[in-house]
C-alpha cells in the first residue's frame, strides 16, 4: 500500500509539474502566472557558457527576460526579481537587453531542479563579453527565480 502510494506520489509531480506555476509576474497590466509550457512558448534563446557557480561549459536555453517582462507590460520599468531562497535583486530597464539575460529553463537541454538552482535561473552569456563578468551582473544572475514585479520607487 505504501509502495503504491509512493509510486503514485512519484508519478504525480510529473503531471503536476507541467501545470505548476513557475513564475509569477506582476505588472501594471495585472498579474500573470507562467508555467513551463508558457515559458517554452516564448521565443527561445540559447548559448554555451561557463558560470562561476558551475563547472565546465554548459548549454543554457530559455526565453529572454525582456520577452517575459513584456508579457505584462513591465518593459522599461524598474524591476525587482525574487527567488525561492528569498534573495531579490533590482533591475533597471537598461539592465535588460533584447536577448540577454535569459530566464534559463534548461541546462544542457534538460530541465533542472531547485537543488541545481532551478527551475528558473537568470543567466547571462558570461563568456561572451567582459561586461558580463562583473559583480553587478553576477548579483543579477538570480537562481530559483519565482517572481518578477515592478519595483515601487
Amino acid at each position, binding site marked *: 500500500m*505504501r509502495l503504491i*502510494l*509512493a509510486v*503514485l*506520489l*512519484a508519478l504525480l509531480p510529473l503531471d503536476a509539474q507541467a501545470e505548476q506555476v513557475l513564475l509569477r509576474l506582476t505588472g501594471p497590466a495585472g498579474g500573470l502566472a507562467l508555467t513551463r509550457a508558457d515559458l517554452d512558448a516564448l521565443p527561445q534563446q540559447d548559448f554555451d557558457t561557463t558560470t*562561476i*557557480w*558551475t*563547472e565546465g561549459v554548459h548549454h543554457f536555453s530559455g526565453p529572454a527576460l525582456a520577452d517575459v517582462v513584456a508579457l505584462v507590460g513591465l518593459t522599461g520599468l524598474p524591476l525587482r526579481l525574487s527567488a*525561492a*531562497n*528569498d*534573495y531579490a535583486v533590482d533591475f533597471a530597464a537598461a539592465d535588460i537587453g533584447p536577448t540577454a539575460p535569459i530566464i534559463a529553463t534548461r541546462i544542457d537541454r534538460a530541465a533542472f*531542479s*531547485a*537543488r*541545481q*538552482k532551478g527551475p528558473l535561473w537568470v543567466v547571462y552569456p558570461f563568456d561572451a563579453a*567582459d561586461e558580463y*563578468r*562583473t*559583480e553587478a551582473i*553576477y548579483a543579477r544572475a538570480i*537562481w*530559483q527565480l519565482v517572481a518578477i514585479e515592478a519595483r515601487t520607487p
Partner: protein
Amino acid sequence: MRRPPGSRAPAELALRIFPWLVPLLGVVLLGVAVLLFSANQINRNLERNQAARTDNTSWVVAQAEVDLLKLQRALDATAESRMLTDTNLATLRQRFDVFYSRIDVIGRNLAQQDWFGAPELRQQWDTLRGHLRDQAALIDAPPLLLAESLPALRADLARQSTAVRAFTLDALLQTVERSDAERHALNGLLARFSVAALLLIGLLVGATWVMVVLTRRLQARALATERIRSNLEKTIDASLDAVIVADARGHITHFNAAAEAIFGYSRAEAVGRDYIDMLVPERMRAMRAQALAEFHRTGTGVLANRGRVVVPSLRKDGTEVPIEVVVISDRDATGEPVFFSFVRDISDQMRIETNLKRSRDAALRSEEAKTRFLAVMSHEMRTPMNGLIAALDIVLRTTDLTEKQRHFLAIARSCSANALEQINDVLEISRLDSGNAPEAPSAFDLCRMLREAAEQGRPLAEQRGNTVHLRLPDDAPARVTGHRRLFARVLGNLLGNALKFTRDGRIDLRLALTPRPGGGWIARVEVEDTGIGIAEDKLDRIFNAFETLDSGYDRATEGTGLGLGIARRAARLMGGDVGVESRLGAGSLFWFTARLDPAGADLPDTVDDLTDAFPLPASLTTPAPSGALPDDTPGTDTPSGPRPDGLDVLVVEDNPVNRIVLREMLQHLGHGVTEAVNGAEAVEMARAHAFDLIFMDISMPVMDGVAATRALRAEPGASDGVPIVGLTAHTLPEELQRFAQAGLDPVLTKPITLNALRIFLEGAPDQEIPPPAPPQIPPVLDVAVRNDLASALPPEVLHQTADRFLSEIAAFLEDLARQIEAGDHDRIAATAHKGCGSASVFGAPRLVAALRRIETQAKQGNAAGGDQAPLLAAARAELDAVRAALAAEDRPAIAV
C-alpha cells in the same frame, strides 16, 4: 668612402656635440617602461577584482546558516501543525532544496578558491554534503514516509546547525584572511608603482632640466656661430680682394662688394648662380666643369689649392678681365665641399707690366742702337785711321825728309796710332759687353806669359828709372787652360798702368794660384807699384768704362780711359774680377783674378806672339821722336817702281784713301797695280785681263766683293784661277765662311800694314799657280789656299795652325756624333757650319763639302730625317785624308 650629399642629419650633429644624450634617453625610456609595466600590473589586479571570478564568498557562506534556519523553521511549522499538508510539504521541500543548493554553491565557490588552502574546510563541507545527500533521500520520499522521518530529520538538522555554524565561521575567517592578503598584495603593488612613478618623475624632471640646459647651450652656440658668421661676412664684404664662395655644385653662396666691382654683378644676381656659367669665359666652361667633376672624384682640382693662378674671367658686360685667383677648398659643417675664391683684378697690373716691358724693350733697343752706333762709328773711323797710318808709313819710308819733317810726321803717326788704339778699345769694350768670350779656352804656359810681360815692360821701366820684380809660385803648373788673350790683356793693362804712373820706383808682379774644389785654380795676379797712387774717392770709379777722372790717372796719360774698363770686363768674363788698393802718392796695388782649368791633353797648346795682346803704352812701341821706325829704316827701303818679278795686281776698293794706300804699298813692294772702284768694274777688268792677284774689298757699292768674286769664279774669263784676297774689317767666323764659299781665298783683315802685306806677298810671286782642279772632285787640300797661308805665316806657326785645325775639326766631329745621336738638328747644323768655316779657311774643300752635306741635311731637319751617320763617316774619312795630306805637305815645305 665619401658621404653622399646631405647625409648628416641635425640630430647627428647634436649627438656629436652632446654624446651623453643617448644614455639619458635610454634611462628615460627604461623608466617609462617600468612605469607602464607597473601600471599594467595594477590594472590587471584591479581587473581581477572587478571581473570577479567568484561570487561574494562571505555572502554565499553566511547565507548557509540563514537557509538552514529557514529549513528548520519550515520543519518546526510542519511539526506544529501535526499534519503534513501539501503546502507544508512544498515549503519544506523548497527550503530543503534551497539549503541543498546553497551548500552546493558554497562548495563550488570554495573549490574555486582551493578551499583557501585549508583541507579541514573541505572535510567539513564533505561531511555536510554527505548528510544532505542522506537527508535528500528522506525529503524525496513519499509524504507518508517523510512524515514518519520528520522528527529524526529535525534532530539531525539541529545537530547539523552546529557543524554549519562552525563551517561558516571557519570559511568566513579564511575569507577575511584571503582578502587581507590580497589587499596587502595590492598595497605592495601600489607602493612599488608609486616609487617607480616618483623615480620616473624625478628622471623626467632631470631630463627636462638637462634639455633646458642643452637648449640654452645650443642657443648660445648658435648665437656664437651667428656672430662668427656675421663677422666673417663683414670681413668678406670689407675685403679689398673679391671673395666668392661657392658650394659643392659650384653655386655661388657669397659674393662680396669687391667681387661686385670686378665682375659687375650685384650680390643678389650672383648668389645662387653657377659660377662656371656666370664667370668663366665660354671657351673654358667645359674644361672647368670637368675640373669640378674631377675634384669631386679625386679631391684635387685644376684651381683648388693650387696657389695663385692667373685666368681670364667674364664680366657681366661680356668683356673679359684677367684675374689672379686663389681657390681654397674646405668642407662645411655637413661635410660638403665649399670653395673660397680670393680674386684680384690684375688688368691694371698687367697693363703696367706690359708698359714696363715695352719701356724696357725700348730702352734696351735704344741702348743697343747706341752701342751699335758706337761700334759702327769706331769701325768707320778705323778705316780712315788705317789709311792715315799707312800713308804716314809710306811717306816716312819712301820719301827723303828733313829731320824736322820726319820729326813731325813721326808725331803724326804716333798720334794716329794712339787714336786707332782708342778706337780699338771702344770696339773691344762692346765686344766684351756682348758677353761672349772672344776666344775659346786654350792651353798656355802661365808663368811664361808673366815672364814675357815683365820682360817686355822692362825697357819702359828702365826709361823711367823703375825696376820690375817678378815673383812666381814654385809649384805653378807648367800649363793651364783659360782665356789666354783675355788674361794677357788684363795683365798687360795693369802692368802698363804701373809702368806709366811710376817714376824711379819699383814694380812688383806677383802670381798666386789657389786650387779650386773640383779641379783648376783661381789665379790672382798682383801688380804693385810705388807710383802716384789714386785718391780714395776715385777708387770705385776707375773701372767704369768711359769714366774720365778729372785729374790724375787718366788725365795724366795719353791712355784711353777704357783700359781698366776693358780689364774689368775681361776679368769677369774669365770668372774673376779686378780690384785696387791705393793711396794717393804712395802707390797702388792692382789685382785681378781668373778661373783657370788644368790643361787637358787634347787641347792644343798655343804659342804665338802676344805682343799685340799686351796693350803696353804707345811710347813703348812708338819710336822716340828722333828714333827709327819700328820695322825697316827708310834708307834701306827700295824705291818704288815695278820689279821684274813683280805681280800684276788688281786692287778693288771703293774707298779712295784705302785704295791709294794699298796701291802705294804694293808699288813700294815692286808690284804692278791696276785699280777698280767696285765689284762690277773689277769683274769686267779681270775677265779682260789675266791678273796674278786680286785684292777685293768686301763692302762696296754697285757690286760687293762677295758677289764679284762669285761672278768671277763662275765665269773667270782671262783671270781663270786667280787668287782673290778679301779685304775686310768683318772678322766674324760666319762671314769668313760666306767669303770662302764665294771663292775668296784668304781674307786679310784691315788694317793692312806694309809689314803685313809684305809677309803676305813674300814668296807668293814665285809660286806657280796650279791649274784649277776638275770641279767634280775637289782636291783634299786646296793648293792655292795652302800656298797663301804658307806665304802669310811663318813655317812653325803654319805647322801649329795645322795641328790646331786638325784637333778642332776632330772635336767638331765628336760634337756632331753626339748631336746626331740626340737628334738636335739645330745644333748639328751650327756645328757643321762652324766646321765648314774652319775647313774652308784652312783650304780643305772636300772636307768642306762633306760637312756642308751634314749641315744641309740637318737644316732640312725632321722632314728629310735621313741617316746622318754615313755623312759623318764620310766627313771623318775626309779629315783623315787631310791629316795624311798635311803630313805629306810637311816634308817638301812649301813656305819659304
